[in-house]
């Protein structure tokens, strides 16, 4: 821990303070009841900071041990992050059961495709164990950001209102993931061989974006979460089953008319 430069240590302290502020806001405003997984994620982040403090302060006989322990703790928080995000999406889409059904399928499909692409891209590039951790981390953030954007695009497509506080929480997650991808990629590209000597730069950049994310969340959580609206009065499933194919058929017919216009030969005028 003491091996890190002073700016990194300062940022580390700021980050812990920001995390504590977010957790305090969650409890003080009573938001922890509505967002249990998100609260657990915030608490887990603080626990991870304490764990990393212990790991980096301790002198290990094997120099790789601290890295392995740190990345293992990161895996846990990333799983918690995915759960917290799903929780917010589920709350947003709860009154829209059909769209939520579509949403989680979209999440699964997009995640599957990105994981496959990441695995294909990383094939044969697993230089060292440390490098593979970075690639895994970047792969996770790629998957996470794409799935989240796909779900938010679906929400926008169906004009579903998202409370500003949830927009800020989800936006914070996505911003952090995108900056992680950029930072990991840029540092790896610029410092190919000396990449692991520039861990301080990596720490500075990733921690800065993490603090920005925490600041966005602190602003979002300064007020209690909006009271959940009564579930929308839903039409019966048969309405959709009856109407949707009919509408599609009419839209298709309209398209065919357009196609006929498109193929129309020029007639003498």
């Amino acid at each position: 821990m003491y091996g890190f430069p002073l700016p990194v240590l300062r940022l580390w302290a700021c980050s812990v303070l920001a995390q504590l502020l977010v957790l305090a806001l969650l409890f003080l405003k009573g938001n922890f009841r509505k967002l249990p997984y998100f609260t657990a994620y915030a608490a887990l982040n603080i626990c991870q900071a304490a764990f990393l403090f212990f790991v980096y302060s301790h002198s290990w006989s094997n120099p790789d041990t601290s890295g392995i322990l740190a990345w293992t703790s990161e895996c846990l928080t990333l799983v918690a992050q995915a759960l917290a995000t799903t929780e917010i999406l589920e709350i947003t889409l709860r009154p829209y059961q059909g769209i939520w059904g579509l949403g989680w399928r979209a999440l699964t499909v997009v995640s599957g495709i990105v994981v496959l692409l990441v695995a294909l891209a990383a094939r044969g590039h697993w230089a060292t164990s440390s490098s593979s951790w970075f690639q895994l981390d970047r792969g996770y953030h790629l998957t996470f950001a794409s799935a989240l954007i796909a779900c938010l695009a679906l929400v926008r497509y169906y004009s579903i209102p998202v409370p500003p506080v949830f927009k800020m929480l989800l936006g914070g997650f996505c911003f952090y993931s995108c900056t992680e991808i950029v930072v990991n990629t840029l540092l790896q590209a610029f410092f190919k061989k000396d990449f692991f000597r520039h861990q301080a730069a990596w720490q500075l950049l990733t921690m800065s974006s993490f603090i920005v994310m925490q600041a966005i969340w602190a602003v979002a959580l300064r007020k209690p979460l909006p009271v959940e609206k009564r579930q929308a009065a839903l039409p019966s499933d048969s309405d959709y089953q009856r109407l949707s194919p009919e509408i599609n058929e009419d839209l298709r017919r309209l398209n065919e008319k357009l196609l006929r216009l498109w193929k129309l030969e020029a007639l003498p005028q």
Partner: protein
Amino acid sequence: MSVTFLLLIAFAVLMLLLLVWVLRDPRKQAKPDSDPESSEEFGQRHVGYFSQVRQALAAEDFAFLASRGSPQLARRLRRERRKIALAYLACLRGDFLRLWRLARVIASMSPEVGVGQELARLRLGLIFSFRYEMIRVKIVFGLSPLPDLGSLSDVVSRLSIRLETAMKNLGERAALAAKLSSSLDNGQGLDTP
């Protein structure tokens, strides 16, 4: 810097831009006439104007004026007809988009949504936009004769009536559900025989 790195950075930047776009409030960006209720009225009017538009585009009128008038008048008439066709085509597109949007509202209110149906509609919307642009370009550059827009209007009109009826039914059902729910909240309960 390798292509993979460039692609990764481009992807992350694209994600950030998409994030800004998806989180932006769509209502702030919407034009006043894109309000579903107001445009519903406008949409019905567009389709209703078809007889006047057809009269304006009638080939007989054009032939008559061409035989009696000068070439300048014929050119001017063609130009005017082109403008009318374009304006009407744009109105039909507005109607299509409004109906497409209404279909999405029905889907968002439904407890079950068919992935196939939704994907099919998305594809139809994209194809419509593409074809609309192609036809518009053809008319603008005089590459196509003025189309018979009547058949298009018929489709939009029929779809409009069907959706209007469906939305009315859904609205009545939703109002009934809300009424029942508020009665239960007030402790009145349901009237039982």
